[in-house]
């Protein structure tokens, strides 16, 4: 990378840390440190919600999915707008009126302390794992693509994030999120513009999209109903609603973002921003991946995008096989390029029969190329012993560092840093809040001055920052990064969602029912995950339904002793 690109990345890092640390003064009370004194405008809280969700795993993994698999992944987000409407009508008013710091505090007010503790533990376990993955995934990719030491890339993401989150609290997280969203969107738009400009002169954008469509990359909506397929219209619109309800409604890393908004109405608006913007934004990121695919139809891509693994094979006794495959790959690439040009010409000519014929030839050439690459990937797996080798997540960073002009490389690498930092900052902040409010203040030191809790909150943030960096250094690169993070979350989310459905949606549920229902829900998700091939998106639905059914059954078997004045969605619990 050029010196100018390093300067862009360095400037970005200094700017973000400076901007975060500026907020230290307004974080000198616990209410300011954890909830920004509920002072943020809806758009800032809303951008913070989006930035926390948009991790580097999403940016790099999604462009990789667009390249390899097309735009089907966008269906994953179809449930989001519906979930946001439901949350605006249900949990947002409850959390605001209860004036809680964490979502789990509400469970104690409604049920009892053990239910709150169980929910907080599920959150702390799942999010501490995912916080490490959020840092390790991009750090690993950047270390390989930029040729840097892995420890250095982990620290380059984790240390600045920990510093501004520790000292600036939630204000620093939210306002840096706003800036980081700006960097991310600018980076993605710049990549799209350069990809369009980088097409061969004889290929227009319309031609490029027709080729991508012929290769199946633009199939966005799949109406087939198959529980074992991850991304269909139905899994998105049904199972996706449950995942999004759980993530935005029960995960403290998101709840804390909208609790910083000035009012209940502004909190709702902050969620509705995602409802309007998220699907188009994800479609744009996927389209970026599709355009990278089109770009590499005319410019030869590397056969293997992970250079470190390629070098391992090249240095092994099987280097001859690699050379032969690379030769075969070059020949297949040339044939596919010619076929792509031929099908474009035929389509322009308007001859339907010839268009169909050249399209079939193009698809056959694409299959040959894919087959060669699949054999190369198999070779890497055999030589490296890494059975989960998958270089799809390296496609976009490789394209950026090898094809884009000086300066823009730095901007887009900074955008990848921004996604990792904004997502992990939200996690660290939420982990610290739950640790202090749900564990320390509730069970260890119940009465202490505000300054004491502020100090403990800062120490807890530092602790979670260090833990995330430590875990990130040891985290392995396993399969598709997006799915790893979502799968871990999906094991817990249904259970958390079920507990809030019982708390807010029913009058008769008791603490005993909620607690045992949650244990049953978590156990059922583990059984489904380990014994069936049902897509992970459905785990949330399974978990939530089991929690509600078992929770209500147990609640009806015991005495009903409502706490005075506690409310459910239908009114007072009496």
């Amino acid at each position, binding site marked *: 990378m050029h010196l100018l690109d390093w300067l862009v990345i360095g400037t970005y890092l200094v700017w973000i840390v400076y901007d975060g640390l500026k907020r230290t003064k307004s974080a000198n009370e616990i209410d300011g440190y954890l909830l920004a004194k509920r002072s943020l405008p809806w758009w800032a809280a809303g951008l913070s919600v989006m930035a926390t969700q948009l991790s580097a795993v999403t940016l790099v993994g999604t462009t990789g999915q667009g390249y390899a698999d097309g735009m089907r992944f966008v269906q994953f987000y179809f449930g989001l707008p519906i979930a946001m409407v439901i949350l605006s009508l249900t949990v947002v008013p409850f959390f605001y009126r209860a*004036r809680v*710091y964490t979502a789990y505090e*509400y469970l104690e007010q409604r049920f009892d302390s053990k239910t709150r503790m169980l929910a907080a533990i599920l959150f702390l376990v799942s999010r501490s794992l995912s916080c490490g993955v959020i840092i390790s995934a991009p750090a690993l990719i950047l270390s390989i693509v930029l040729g840097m030491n892995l420890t250095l890339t982990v620290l380059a993401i984790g240390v600045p994030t920990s510093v501004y989150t520790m000292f600036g609290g939630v204000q620093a997280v939210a306002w840096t999120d706003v800036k980081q969203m700006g960097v991310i969107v600018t980076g993605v738009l710049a990549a799209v513009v350069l990809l369009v400009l980088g097409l061969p002169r004889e290929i227009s954008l319309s031609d490029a999209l027709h080729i991508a469509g012929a290769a199946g990359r633009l*199939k966005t*909506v799949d109406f087939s109903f198959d529980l074992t397929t991850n991304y269909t219209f139905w899994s998105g619109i049904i199972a996706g609603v449950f995942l999004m309800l759980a993530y935005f409604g029960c995960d403290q890393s998101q709840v804390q973002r909208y609790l910083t908004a000035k009012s*209940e109405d502004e909190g709702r608006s902050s969620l509705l921003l995602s409802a309007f913007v998220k699907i188009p934004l994800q479609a744009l990121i996927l389209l970026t991946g599709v355009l990278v695919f089109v770009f590499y139809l005319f410019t030869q891509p590397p056969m293997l995008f992970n250079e470190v693994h390629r070098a391992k094979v090249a240095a092994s006794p099987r280097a001859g096989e690699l050379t032969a495959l690379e030769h075969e790959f070059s020949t297949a690439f040339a044939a596919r390029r010619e076929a792509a040009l031929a099908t474009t010409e035929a389509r322009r000519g308007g001859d339907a029969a010839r268009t169909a014929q050249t399209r079939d030839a193009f698809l056959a050439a694409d299959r040959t190329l894919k087959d060669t690459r699949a054999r190369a990937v198999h070779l890497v797996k055999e030589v490296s012993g890494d059975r989960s080798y998958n270089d799809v997540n390296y496609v976009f960073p490789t394209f950026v560092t090898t094809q884009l002009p000086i300066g823009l490389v730095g901007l887009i690498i900074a955008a990848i840093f921004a996604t990792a930092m904004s997502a992990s900052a939200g996690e660290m902040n939420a982990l610290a809040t739950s640790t202090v409010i749900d564990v320390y203040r509730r069970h260890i030191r119940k009465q202490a001055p505000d300054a004491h809790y502020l100090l403990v909150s800062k120490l807890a943030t530092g602790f979670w920052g260090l833990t995330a960096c430590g875990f990130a250094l040891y985290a392995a690169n396993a399969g598709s990064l997006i799915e790893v993070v979502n799968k871990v979350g999906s094991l817990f989310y249904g259970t958390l969602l079920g507990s809030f459905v019982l708390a807010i949606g029913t009058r008769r549920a008791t603490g005993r029912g909620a607690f045992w229902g949650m244990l049953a829900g978590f156990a059922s998700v583990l059984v489904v995950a380990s014994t069936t091939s049902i897509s992970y998106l459905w785990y949330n639905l399974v978990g939530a339904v089991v929690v509600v059914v078992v929770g209500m059954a147990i609640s009806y078997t015991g005495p009903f002793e409502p706490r005075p004045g506690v409310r459910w969605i239908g009114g007072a619990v009496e």
Partner: protein
Amino acid sequence: MTAAATDTPQPGRRRTGTYLLVLLVEALTITALWAFGHYFGAP
């Protein structure tokens, strides 16, 4: 540090129109995505 969950609820602004708009925009977005793929020859 926190008030109870028993605070008297203040009626929030009715936002039925906004919620319907969210769902309408989603339906239009999904239709547009489907049409986009269909127009460019997605199989």
